[in-house]
């Protein structure tokens, strides 16, 4: 098997919940040796997150935790104790990267600020992920996926004008925060290796979304350019062709057809005289008339039929899959995208596979998410040289 791209990279992972663990998951999935540190007893709060296997709440049966922590080794360590801090510093000596997503005051309060850690390991880089960043008046404020959507992203513009703003899907804001932090971490590692500069990265999830390409950057700049504040509008479109979600016989399709595609849309619809009826595709006064042609056309067909006719004509329309449909979808299955992970407590669970596929060094599932403290003896005894008796003592003292 080919060596993975990050096989030479060692990460000490203090992250918890969602955003931080998604960042270190990406590093681990592409080969990094990630040691995840959890607090003794309860571990990462994500162990209490739904969905659970068969809806049975159990710290080793959270699907959320399992998915986010594949390929990591897990140890327990109480960083609030002096011994815990001492052991943490021993671990720091031997790693390239520390990733954490505590509230910004936590690491300095524990005596584990980047400046302190760098004294122990001058080659260390550190990624700190937080709701609003390491500095500024909101640095101590709490957030959630919903709040990041409101303050960082375009929630105000989603939904209909007569109702409240509508959030985006699932925990997308938090996954994206982790995704961005992984890119930032790689950049920090590169800067160290290329220029010998070690530093701390400050990832504010709010700011991650403020540069988002999904309308956020556009709208922020539109205000600067034209003084327009983006609000919720009915039927966002580029012209008179209907864009968005529409009903079919057996479900929904999403249309992204634009004026440029008009000749192809005519081919797709196979309705005579359309070119004559709509000589100017930019004529906004014809919007309702156009909708009266196209929306019923969708409604008279199945979503698959619409998708196939659209793709044959190279127009931008596709059917809406449910998350279940996506798992069963012939395309993703033909590509072997979903993979089966075998976990000692949960059995075999199907999960999303590689977000991208490097030909030189593949994405590999090497091990399932760790049980709480599963690699304590491997790390503390084999790596740091503590004895089995030491571990017993540390456990009694509540350190591990």
């Amino acid at each position, binding site marked *: 098997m080919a060596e993975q*791209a990050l096989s030479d990279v060692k990460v000490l992972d203090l992250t918890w919940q969602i955003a931080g663990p998604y960042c270190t998951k990406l590093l681990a999935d592409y080969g990094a040796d990630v040691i995840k540190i959890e607090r003794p007893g309860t571990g990462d709060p994500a162990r209490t997150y739904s969905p659970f296997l068969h809806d049975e709440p159990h710290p080793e049966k959270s699907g959320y935790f399992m998915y986010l922590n594949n390929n990591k080794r897990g140890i327990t360590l109480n960083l609030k104790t002096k011994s815990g801090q001492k052991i943490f510093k021993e671990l720091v000596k031997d790693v390239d990267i520390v990733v954490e997503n505590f509230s910004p005051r936590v690491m300095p309060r524990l005596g584990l600020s980047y400046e302190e850690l760098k004294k122990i390991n001058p080659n260390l880089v550190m990624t700190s992920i937080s709701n609003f960043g390491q500095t500024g008046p909101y640095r101590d404020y709490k957030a959630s996926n919903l709040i990041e959507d409101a303050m960082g992203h375009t929630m105000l513009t989603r939904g209909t004008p007569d109702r409240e703003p509508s959030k985006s899907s699932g925990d997308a804001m938090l996954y994206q925060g982790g995704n961005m932090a992984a890119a930032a971490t*790689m950049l920090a590692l590169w800067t160290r290796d290329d220029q010998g500069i070690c530093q701390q990265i400050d990832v504010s999830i709010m700011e991650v979304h403020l540069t988002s390409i999904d309308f956020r950057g556009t709208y922020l700049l539109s205000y600067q350019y034209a003084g327009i504040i983006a609000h919720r509008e009915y039927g966002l479109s580029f012209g008179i062709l209907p864009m968005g979600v529409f009903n079919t016989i057996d479900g929904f399709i999403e249309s992204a057809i634009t004026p440029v595609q008009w000749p192809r849309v005519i081919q797709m619809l196979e309705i005579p005289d359309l070119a004559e009826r709509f000589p100017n595709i930019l004529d906004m006064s014809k919007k309702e008339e156009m909708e009266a042609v196209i929306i019923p056309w969708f409604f008279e067909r199945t979503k698959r039929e619409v998708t196939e006719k659209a793709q044959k004509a190279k127009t931008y329309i596709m059917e*809406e899959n449910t998350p279940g449909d996506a798992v069963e979808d012939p395309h993703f299955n033909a590509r072997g995208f979903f993979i089966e992970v075998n976990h000692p407590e949960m059995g075999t669970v199907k999960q999303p596979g590689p977000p991208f596929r490097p030909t030189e060094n593949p994405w590999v599932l090497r091990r399932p998410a760790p049980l709480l403290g599963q690699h304590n003896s491997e790390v503390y005894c084999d790596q740091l040289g503590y004895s089995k008796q030491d571990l017993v003592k540390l456990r009694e003292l509540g350190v591990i």
Partner: protein
Amino acid sequence: MSELPLKGIRVIDVSVVWAAPYALQLLADYGAEIIKVESLQYIPPTTRSLGFFPPKEMVPILGALGRSFPDLDPGKRPWNRLSAFNCHFRNKHSCTMDLRRPKGKEMFKRLVEISDMVIENNAAGVMDRLGLGYEVLSEWKPDIIMVSSPGFGKSGPYSNYVGFGNSMMALTGFNWIRGYRDSAPETTTTSVWLDSASGPAIAFAAMMALHHRDNTGRGQFIEFAQAENLINHIGDVVLDYTMNGRVQGTPGNRHPYSAAPYGCYRCKPESRKVRPDVFAPNQYADDQWINISVFNEKQWQGLCRVMGNPEWAHDKKFSDVLSRYQNQDELDKHIEEWTSKLDKYEVFHSLQKEGVPAGPVLDDKDAYNDPHLKDRGFFEEVTGPELGTHLYPGMTWKMSKTPGSIRKPPVRLGEDNEYVYKTLLGVSAEEYAELEKEQHIGMDYVGV
């Protein structure tokens, strides 16, 4: 000042629309030299325009994407002026060559020979058909890194499917769990989250490949199927299906699993209309909202304190996490009755002081005025030729020793032809003039 992190890394940008351009923006912001390769003959849809160039009088009636030119004026070269693209054009270089003609291909080859990476997100097969697939590029430059990011990858039944982020996303299941829980899916506003999610992941893939090249001297091809990356962003929802057979629907603004109250609540109106000359239906609206998300008993107690411990909060219906989750309709009404009399920022700060997660739903003006973002110096002032001076969203993350910045305004079509052809490729003045005459080089689309 220290060097930028990616100084010395040259990336050829054959990107369209938003996904790969977003990744390239990240690499550009932190110092990579991004060379956008564009063509005067081919106007790719939704890359420098919405595919058409509207006359000035039409601009105010266009939707949010189409109208956003400086002062609502498309100007002489509208392709350099639309906010939807200028938001990610900063720090990039642009050169023009017609890749469909041999001379353009030859110039592209010379550029590949002195570059580290090629990033593209054209429909699958486009680069191969141009004769510019990885096999060809790697013959020209053996350690070249190429990231190709079509929607569905290079294999499988949908590999030839075409679309924008919003339609391609539909197949991932991502769209299914958004929108209102009690309105038809048709009311959902279209979103191109696919492109957003691809940006950092493509940048991550590119950095990883650089790291690998550094270690081994080897370049490589990375196949980036955008839909598969996005499915990773709803991993928990996928596992609910594969473990429990449950197909999640949209929870609306509510927490999908357990937290309550968790929602978006109306606040005191602040009535205004910014541009009376623009057709934007909701500008009159008193569009002021606060999001509140309560995860545990401590936060609930905090919320009660800030609300002044109202009597209703002591009702048995709201006595614990479970009962609050079950009685959300009623709970939300009570909370909105309280928030609707207050300013969104006032609710925000008073709840946060008591440790309750809350946040105002910001509009574009709020973001520029936000004291936190000001304190962190997030927005950066940029002056562009043909554009004027404006504030732009700044760096996506902060690096303590090598901070990036906006060093170059949104790049105009062909703006860096002289630099690319003469300085980088060593093209003579005569040859340059010839390429201009043959319409490889220029700053205006042919036939517009």
